[in-house]
């Protein structure tokens, strides 16, 4: 339930915030001496010394987005020499956090870790009346790539995605396909698969990964579109099998799992976490931030931390991210339109 629309839905704990409590305790004591002192903020080049950089996380604490933002903040702090603050503004599938970001001062001290599929969905879907679109933000850097997989019960007759497609072609709307939510990042890849293979599934939309996994184990659905993190333990236990990966390349966590393209189905629906800021940021500020993120991502100890969280980094510069985002938006808009028309 925490982050229903990010592909990887497990409610992983906030890791390694260990030092924060002690540090804040000491900070609190210091504040005792100067309760109403105003922090001096002379205008200078980015980053302003002593002025914290806030990362808005548009999901609840403990989810994947939150955890990856906190790890990044922890490593960026020494890199840029200013304190980092992670603030959770969950709700409305990232719309609340994204609105707050779009209205923030574009001085580089307010950023957000955006889940691209969720962010794009909120403004492409006009019924949601989001007060922003792509031009309201400045792309900074692409950070993490991931994708959903297709999972079936261990004794399922479906051995590959093509088996699934054949069954759906023979009897339209009988293969029950579970997703983590209506119009979610689990639903839209299913729509893409329907569209490409020209078949129809019977979608069953749950409310997050936990009920979806339960339903697959109980046989209430035939196949589930789910994140890797919540599926892998059941694959290891021999209860589930993965038959296809929605990424544009294989995942390091299940190297033997073929992508859909490997199975001659031209569908890829990767999901992304990217660092973005409000529109109107200085090019030099973006460059400072983006190269700091690149440096951090290249560090082996940072990679170790991501691996422990079952996450894979995928750095892109601000320009590359901008192009990727525009392309992603076009594809996402089409899928949302298809999903809507299927409901009529």
């Amino acid at each position, binding site marked *: *339930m*925490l982050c229903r629309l990010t592909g990887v839905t*497990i*409610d*992983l*704990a*906030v*890791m*390694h*915030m*260990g030092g*924060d*409590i002690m540090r804040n305790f000491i900070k609190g004591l210091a504040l005792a001496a100067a309760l109403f002192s105003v922090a001096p903020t002379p205008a200078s080049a980015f980053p302003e010394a002593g002025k914290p950089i806030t990362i808005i996380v548009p999901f*609840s*604490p*403990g989810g994947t987005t939150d955890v990856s933002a906190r790890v990044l903040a922890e490593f960026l702090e020494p890199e840029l020499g200013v304190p980092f603050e992670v*603030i*959770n*503004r*969950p*709700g*409305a*599938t990232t*719309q*609340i956090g994204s*609105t707050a970001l779009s209205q923030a001062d574009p001085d580089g001290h307010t950023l957000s870790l955006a889940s691209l599929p969720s962010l794009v969905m909120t403004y492409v879907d006009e*019924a*949601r*009346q*989001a007060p922003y679109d792509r031009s309201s933000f400045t792309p900074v850097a692409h950070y993490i790539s991931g994708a959903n997989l297709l999972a079936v019960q261990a004794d399922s007759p479906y051995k590959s995605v093509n088996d699934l497609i054949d069954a759906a072609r023979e009897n339209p*709307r*009988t293969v*029950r396909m579970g997703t983590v939510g*209506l*119009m979610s990042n689990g639903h839209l890849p299913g729509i893409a698969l329907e569209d490409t293979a020209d078949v129809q599934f*019977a*979608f*069953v*939309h*749950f*409310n997050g990964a*936990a*009920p979806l*996994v*339960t*339903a697959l*184990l*109980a046989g*209430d*659905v035939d196949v589930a579109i789910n994140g890797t993190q919540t599926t892998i*333990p*059941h694959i*290891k*236990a021999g*209860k589930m099998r993965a038959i296809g990966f929605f990424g544009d390349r294989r995942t390091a966590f299940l190297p033997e799992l073929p992508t859909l393209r490997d199975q001659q189905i031209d569908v890829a629906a990767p999901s992304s976490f990217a660092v973005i800021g409000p529109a109107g940021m200085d090019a030099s500020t973006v460059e400072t931030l983006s190269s700091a993120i690149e440096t951090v991502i290249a560090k082996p100890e940072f990679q170790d931390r991501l691996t422990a969280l079952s996450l894979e980094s995928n750095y892109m510069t601000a320009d590359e991210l901008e192009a990727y985002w525009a392309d992603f938006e076009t594809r996402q808009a089409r899928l949302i339109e298809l999903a*809507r028309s299927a*409901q009529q």
Partner: protein
Amino acid sequence: MSENFSLLLSGFGNALRMENLIFAFAGCFLGTLVGMLPGLGPSAAIAILLPITAAMDPTAAIVMLAAIYYGCQYGDTITAVLFNTPGTGGAAMTAVEGHMMAKQGRAGTALAIAAIASFVGGTITVGVLAMIALPLTSLALSFGPPEFFALIVLSLVLVVTLGSSSILRGLITTVFGLILAMVGTDPVMGLPRLTFGQMHLLDGVAFIPVIIGLFGVGEILKNLEDPSNSFREAVVSKLQITRDDARRSAPAIARGTVLGFLIGIIPGMGTIPAAFMSYVTEKRLSRTPERFGTGMIEGVAGPESANNAAANGALLPLLTLGIPGSGVVAILMGALMMNGIVPGPLMFEEQSDLVWTLIASMYVGNVILLVLNLPFIPMWVSILRIPYSFLFPVILGFTVVGAYSLANSQFDLGLIAVFGLIGYVMRKLDFPLVPIIMTLILGPMMEGGLRRSLEMSQGDFTIFLNRPITAGFLALAVVFLLLPLVSGVRRRLKRASTPVSSGETD
């Protein structure tokens, strides 16, 4: 089974080591403290205190987290009884009868019986969890969307027939609550519904601010009419459980434990429906159902034991399937994963040491909480001696922080004020508050469950008749709906000749 027993013993060996006992004690204390603050429930407590446990060794961390989990369940009872401000939905039922008891000067008794009920509900179900976890797993799996839907329908019927001093006002509150539950994103099209362009409503009306407003702020507003004697009677409270109290509570605790555990096992149900079902059961089985709402001890004992039993039940799908049964358990799961425990199908085999330590430490935590809480009850009750002009601002301050910190949202603070006013007006006009709480929880579950079931069957309604559990629940719902219509109407007609003159029912 005997093998399990020896594993459990070694788990106790771990949990009872001195340093672990200290962490258990600290966890219980912190959990109680955070649970007492309105709005900051167990989820917030674990999330907030997680960083502390990150630096500790896995066993100590697990002991402490389990203690925090339980400490919260005890803590929110205290504010529910004393100030009618339940910190979480699970304690809302306790607030109904418990606060009435407090008004009659029996706050100490209510808190004591709540602590004992929680202890019994908690410890017995830990034992069950330890001994027959794996067979019970199939029960959790047999609950698909249709079963879920049918159980929710049954619960909604129970809300409707719960009754209050007036059938009409009870029905109005129920329908009003259901309409509130419709606000958000609809499960059919995924489009905004009744949100009036307000993005903060896209996820629905946030639950915690609503209960804080309706119960906590509403209660304070009502006391402000004449604050000089708001808690006067409660101050003279005695910690005394009479033989009559014990006789009435014991069966309620037993029923609440069984009911709560069974409901807790079902993923997604959680503690709120468990406490509610227990309350309704007690009211139905009581020989004096009309006295519910005036401070009946069964209405505290049953829901409190059910609440804690459900909290344990929710751990079952986590331990055996790696599926968090509730939002709180999801955060607990994250905490366990940080400490190297991967909850899931292989946990009992691969990490049996830690699992049994976890189970043993829950038991230890419950004992500590009972020992810790009973002597402190007079202290909690003495909070009521603080003059209202100091106490009310402090409570309001806590509600503000609690509601804001849930999602760092100003909108939630506004909700508190709005629902505070609604709660005040409803108290003045003698509308029952509980139906709103229950329908706000159950409404979206009902609609979502119906939609999911029909997606599974592609629009075929016979899915509700072909599955035996589903059909059973729905049949029961029909019976409960018709029973009071038949017998109740006759009784009401007879009573209608004498005017109703009930005063308070909040």
